[in-house]
Structures are given as structure tokens and as C-alpha cells.
């Protein structure tokens, strides 16, 4: 294929990402399990890139978890999301950036439904008015927060203090990138690179010096899948999916994994502990597991933020081996100190996974 043709094809896989003035909405899972991620995102955007980001404390869940488990009806979900749009309109913004891939997928689904069925949008507007006396404008630009970091990846590189390079060997780190299913598999045109060639994390990793591993189960689901996980008896399906991925990536000796979905980061991290406890195995050579980062945490490390300030102590799999490879200095004794300097308590030691 000619280069010009390639460029033209690739253009179809791009999407418009607003340059500034964002209405930020948080993720239920991410702010619970990796709370430093969202703080890091805000710090990078507001302090380092000098962007205007606004968030409203009245923002609620998008109902994604309830919706995908058939507990919350679609009309309720749409009305809740309409309320989010109303908060955005009230604040004077037109660009909405959800931190959660589930929310991003759901917002996209709702907007697509309204495009095809304007009568449903009219009905939801009526529901919202009756319930809250609010009105809203449909967002002009809806992108996931990983798209924002992707957009500014070269700017972040210019400001970076750390590269994704093994300090001792000088070689690029081997990175597994994992895209959340709801980012681009449901609406391929909504993700950078579509469903087949998602470039959002690859772009960040390569811009910051790392190498992306292309392993057989790269596009396999992490196993979260809502109803696979929420019912305890079904969790075997969830952990089996993750195990399939771990077994597939293991021969490539990844230095760490990075995901853009809150659920994926959570399960790829926690299931390593679970599998170690159930079967006594880990997927690295020294028994510590493969560290898992969110893309905000990866960006934070690249920007030179303290690993404990960005919340890396919240991970099940220890990040210290990765920090050592990156040559990042850290104090072990500070790992479990809160922002007020008080000890926040240490977790129990697992039986097999070395921490």
C-alpha cells in the first residue's frame, strides 16, 4: 500500500478531541480503587498543561454497573445521564470527558440512540424536567480522558522527567496495553484507531519511550464483564478470562501492563493475587506479579510525580520492581503514609504473591 493511501485510511480512524475547557466526570470504580489516578489527571491537565477542567460535586454514577446488570432500566439511565449533561450546560461547558470507560460507552450509546430516535430524546427531556426542572444541551465533544492524555502525549513528553526505559539496560520497557471493551468495541468510530487498531495507549507508550507487546490475546476482555463478576458463583468466568490473557502475555516478559478502563486496571491487578492464592502461580520470573498501572498513573510517573502521591500503594501487585527499572527514587517507609503524614495502615501479606 502506498504511504499516501495508508494515511488516508488512518484518517478514518481518528476522532476530534477538544483542545480545552473540559467538564470532567469521575468514575465510581477508579476513584474507589485507584483514587490517585483521577487526582493525577487533574494535576497534569490543570497544573502542567494549564487546561481549564471543571467538575461538579453533584455529579453521580452514570448507572453503568446497574444498567449492565439489568437492574436499572434504560430510561432511568438516560435520565441520569441527561442530568449530567444538564450540570455541564449549567456550568457553561460543551466538552464532556468521562474518566470511566463504562460511562464513556454509555454516554456514546445514549447519544447514538437519541440521534436515531429523536422522540426518545424528547421523552427523556420531559422526564428530566419533571424530576429536576433541568434542561440540557447535548455535548459538542464527548471523549474519554485517555483520549485527552493521548492528544497531549507529546506535550507531556516535552515536560517529562522519566522515560519508559530500563535504567540499567537502556532498553525500552515491554508494555502490555489493554483497552477497555466499551471504549471502542461497541462504537469503533468513537475510539482513536477504532476497534481493530486502538492507538490511544500505544501512542502514549511509544511517545514516552516504551515498546508495546503484541501478544495473541491482546484484544481479549479482561474478564470484568459486570455480571461475570457481580454474582460470586460466576467469578470463575471473570478470573478465567484474565488468566487467559496472563498466560498469553507471559512469554513476552512484560515489565508492566497499562489499561484505560477502571475495571480492567482493577481486575488485571487483583486477579493476579487471586490466581496466586488459588493455584500458587504468578506470571513473572520473581513471584511479584506483573505491575498494572492506569494511564494517568503512567503519565504521572513520566511527569516525575512521587509514586506514593499518585496512589501506587493502592495496587495489589507491588510496583516497586517497576520503579526500580525506571530508576525512580522512592522511600519504602513513606509507602503507607497519608497526605497528613499519618500511617494509613498496611494490608495483610498474601500467601504466595511476593509484596
Amino acid at each position, binding site marked *: 500500500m502506498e504511504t499516501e493511501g495508508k494515511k488516508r485510511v488512518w484518517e478514518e480512524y481518528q476522532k476530534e478531541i477538544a483542545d480545552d475547557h473540559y467538564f470532567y466526570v469521575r468514575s465510581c470504580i477508579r476513584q474507589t480503587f485507584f483514587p490517585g489516578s483521577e487526582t493525577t489527571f487533574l494535576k497534569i491537565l490543570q497544573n502542567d498543561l494549564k487546561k481549564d477542567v471543571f467538575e461538579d460535586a453533584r455529579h453521580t454514577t452514570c448507572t453503568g454497573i446497574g444498567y449492565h446488570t439489568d437492574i436499572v432500566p434504560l430510561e432511568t439511565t438516560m435520565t441520569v445521564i441527561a442530568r449530567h449533561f444538564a450540570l455541564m450546560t449549567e456550568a457553561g461547558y460543551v466538552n464532556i470527558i468521562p474518566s470511566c470507560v463504562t460511562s464513556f460507552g454509555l454516554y456514546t450509546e445514549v447519544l447514538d440512540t437519541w440521534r436515531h430516535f429523536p422522540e426518545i430524546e424528547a421523552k427523556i427531556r420531559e422526564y428530566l424536567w419533571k424530576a429536576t426542572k433541568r434542561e440540557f444541551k447535548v455535548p459538542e465533544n464527548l471523549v474519554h480522558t485517555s483520549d485527552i492524555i493521548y492528544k497531549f502525549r507529546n506535550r507531556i513528553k516535552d515536560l517529562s522527567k522519566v522515560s519508559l526505559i530500563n535504567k540499567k539496560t537502556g532498553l525500552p520497557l515491554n508494555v502490555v496495553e489493554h483497552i477497555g471493551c466499551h471504549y471502542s468495541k461497541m462504537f469503533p468510530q468513537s475510539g482513536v484507531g477504532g476497534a481493530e487498531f486502538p492507538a490511544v495507549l500505544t501512542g502514549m507508550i511509544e511517545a514516552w519511550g516504551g515498546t508495546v507487546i503484541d501478544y495473541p490475546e491482546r484484544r481479549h476482555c479482561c474478564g470484568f464483564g459486570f455480571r461475570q463478576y457481580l454474582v460470586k*458463583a460466576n*467469578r*470463575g468466568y471473570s478470573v*478465567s478470562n484474565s488468566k487467559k490473557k496472563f498466560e498469553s502475555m507471559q512469554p513476552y516478559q512484560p515489565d508492566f501492563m497499562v489499561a484505560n478502563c477502571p475495571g480492567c486496571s482493577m481486575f488485571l491487578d487483583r486477579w493476579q493475587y487471586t*490466581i496466586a*492464592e*488459588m493455584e500458587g502461580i504468578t506470571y513473572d520470573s520473581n513471584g511479584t506479579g506483573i505491575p498494572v498501572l492506569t494511564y494517568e498513573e503512567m503519565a504521572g510517573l513520566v511527569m516525575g510525580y512521587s509514586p506514593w502521591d499518585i496512589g501506587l500503594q493502592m495496587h495489589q501487585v507491588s510496583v516497586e520492581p517497576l520503579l526500580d527499572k525506571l530508576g525512580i527514587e522512592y522511600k519504602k517507609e513513606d509507602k503507607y503514609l497519608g497526605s497528613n503524614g499519618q500511617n494509613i495502615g498496611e494490608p495483610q501479606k498474601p*500467601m504466595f504473591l511476593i509484596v
Partner: protein
Amino acid sequence: MKDWGYSILKGRQIDFENNDFSIAEYITKHEPSFRWCIGCGSCTATCSAARLTDFNPRKLKLLIQRGEIKGLADEIAKCMLCGKCQLVCPRGINTRNVIQNIKRALNTCHAL
């Protein structure tokens, strides 16, 4: 090991890269009609052993072709070599010779 109240499922994908095809190759070499099978299941439907046990010649043939030969020795021991399967096979496969060759292959290729 901890019991969390759920188990890790074994993958159901056919691992063609790591499976063992030596038995299938041995049978095909010594009884080429093994390749003619269309998987109709007539053999299993008439099998004397299948009336009394869970022996399933059709399934066995599929697993051998996939190279999934774990537990093959125990399975093949259920066959009584009555030959009914050979009488009903629409492809005229010498099924009894296939069974005999599976047994020989197990002795030659593997100590399963």
C-alpha cells in the same frame, strides 16, 4: 490453596501448537481410512460398550484428531472390539483396525 467459592475454568480452546498429534499420525499411517470419517456418529449409536459405559468412538476420534489425548488409554480400554461400528460405518472405515492401532500407538508413542 484458598477456596473463594468459585473456580478457575480451564480454557476450552484447541491448542494446536502444543497438542500431541503423534497418535493421529500413527493411526493415519497404519489405517489410512481413519481420514475418511465424516463424524456421523453411527459408530457411537451402535456401540455395545456405549450402552454400558460412556464410551464414545466418535468423540474419541475427534479428540485424537485435535491432539487432545489425555486419558485415552482408559477410554480405549472400554471397547469390546465387537465390530458393530464397522458394519454400520457409511464410509467403510476399518474401525476395528483403528482401535487396534490406537492401542499399538499408545504402546509405541506414549506410556499413557
